[in-house]
Every structure is written in C-alpha cells, then in structure tokens.
C-alpha cells in the first residue's frame, strides 16, 4: 500500500511552526523585538542546516532546539540585559475588566522574574499544549527535568502572586486579592469538573 498523504515540505513545516517559535522566543527573551530577531536567526540557521534534518523525525523538536541554542549562543555573545517588562500591549487592550488586566499585568511581570528555562518550559506546556516528553526532546533535557521545571515555575508563580513572600509589592497584594476571588470561582469550576 502506498502512502497517498502529501507530506508537508521542509519549508511548509517552518512556516507552520512560526507562531509557536514566536511564543517560545518571547518566553525566552521577554522582549518583542529581540524575540522577532531570534525567530529570524533561528529560521536562517534551520535553512542552512536543512540537510541535517532527517525527514520523518520530530520537526517541531528539531526547530525548537535550534531556536533555543541560538538564544543561548546570543546570550553568551552579548551578555546583555533585556527589558523586564515588555509585555505585549495587546494584552492590556483586551475587553477584560480593569482588575483582570491588573492581575494579568502582575502575571506577566512575575513571568519575567522566572529563570528563562522555567519560563520557556511553562509556556511550551501550558500555551502550546506540549507533552513533557516533547518538551524534553525540544529542550534537550530529561523528562524528569522538564516536569520539574514546569512544576517549579507553577509553584513559584503561585507563591509570588498569592503574596506569600516578603517581596510582594502592594500591586502584587492587590492582584493577589483579585486572584483569590478568581481562584474561588476557579475552585468551583474544579469541583464541578
């Protein structure tokens, strides 16, 4: 029996994964402009190295690894600092109520304080819906390490956002109060689920 399904070309696969690469890049760099540059650099690297990709193997993992390696390589070269509060402005242009936008802003700020590997892992699992196995393959680590990064990121954010540390700002405590209300709503959903 022959396979009638048309396999996407190498270039089609790159175009298809661009939105996810942008999210990964933003999670790593915390800066929109740097994220766009990183995606472009990673695509250039992938195009140059396309002969080394084995068709039929995990293209997304291959591509995410290239982007990640490029990020690390750039960091080593530049050792620069990045904007720590470069949250997409579109986040705050949503129709969400004012207090929800404040909580989102607190979340975005807390995200920037996470180590880059935890931030990347959390975004790839929660936003991309990636499995721990795929995350491990994409970031070149053991599955246990991938799980641990996501777990620590979640609990660290929870600790910061619920105001359990001395570092909590007044804005953070306000967001925590809102979050507590949203959590109460969420708990009802969890119980119902």
């Amino acid at each position, binding site marked *: 029996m022959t396979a009638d399904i048309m396999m996407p070309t190498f270039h089609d696969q790159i175009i298809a994964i661009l939105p996810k690469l942008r999210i990964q890049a933003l999670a790593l760099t915390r800066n929109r402009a740097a994220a766009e540059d990183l995606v*472009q650099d990673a695509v250039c690297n992938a195009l140059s190295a396309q002969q080394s990709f084995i068709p039929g193997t995990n293209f997304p993992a291959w591509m995410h690894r290239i982007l990640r390696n490029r990020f690390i390589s750039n960091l080593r070269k530049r050792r620069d600092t990045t904007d720590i509060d470069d949250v997409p402005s579109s986040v705050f242009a949503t129709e969400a109520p004012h207090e929800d936008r404040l909580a989102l802003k607190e979340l975005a700020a807390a995200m920037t304080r996470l180590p880059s590997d935890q931030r990347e892992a959390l975004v790839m699992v929660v936003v991309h819906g990636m499995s721990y196995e795929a995350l491990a393959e994409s970031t070149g680590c053991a599955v246990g390490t991938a799980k641990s990064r996501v777990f620590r990121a979640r609990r660290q954010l929870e600790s910061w956002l619920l105001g359990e540390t001395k570092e909590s700002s007044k804005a953070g405590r306000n967001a925590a109060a809102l979050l507590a209300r949203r959590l109460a709503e969420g708990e009802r959903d*969890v119980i119902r689920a």
Partner: protein
Amino acid sequence: MMPKANDPSRSVAPKAAQKKPRKTEAAFDLWLQKGLHDIFDNVAHEPIPEELLRLIEEDRKR
C-alpha cells in the same frame, strides 16, 4: 524553654499548616492557564513579517 529548631514536635506542625489544599493548586493552575493564553495567544496570531516569509520562499526556490 524555647524549643530547638530541630525539635520534631516543632517542625511537623508548621509543615502541615503550610500545606495547601490540592483544589487551590488546581484552581491556580486553571487561572494560570487562562492568563498565559491571554498573554501569549495574541503574539501567535500576529501576521508573520513579510521579510521572514520572503526569506523562506527564496530558499524554497533554490
């Protein structure tokens, strides 16, 4: 007399008190998932820069 820091009777109680209910963690995770989607989904849906697409298409033609 103050209990010593390594006194088991002293360390067990605070740990138990600090333990969060699982449903609170689950509710936080649910809220976190929604928040992260709110932050990052817009980025994914923005148009791809023309320059980047041109770069890929030029390489495809080679």
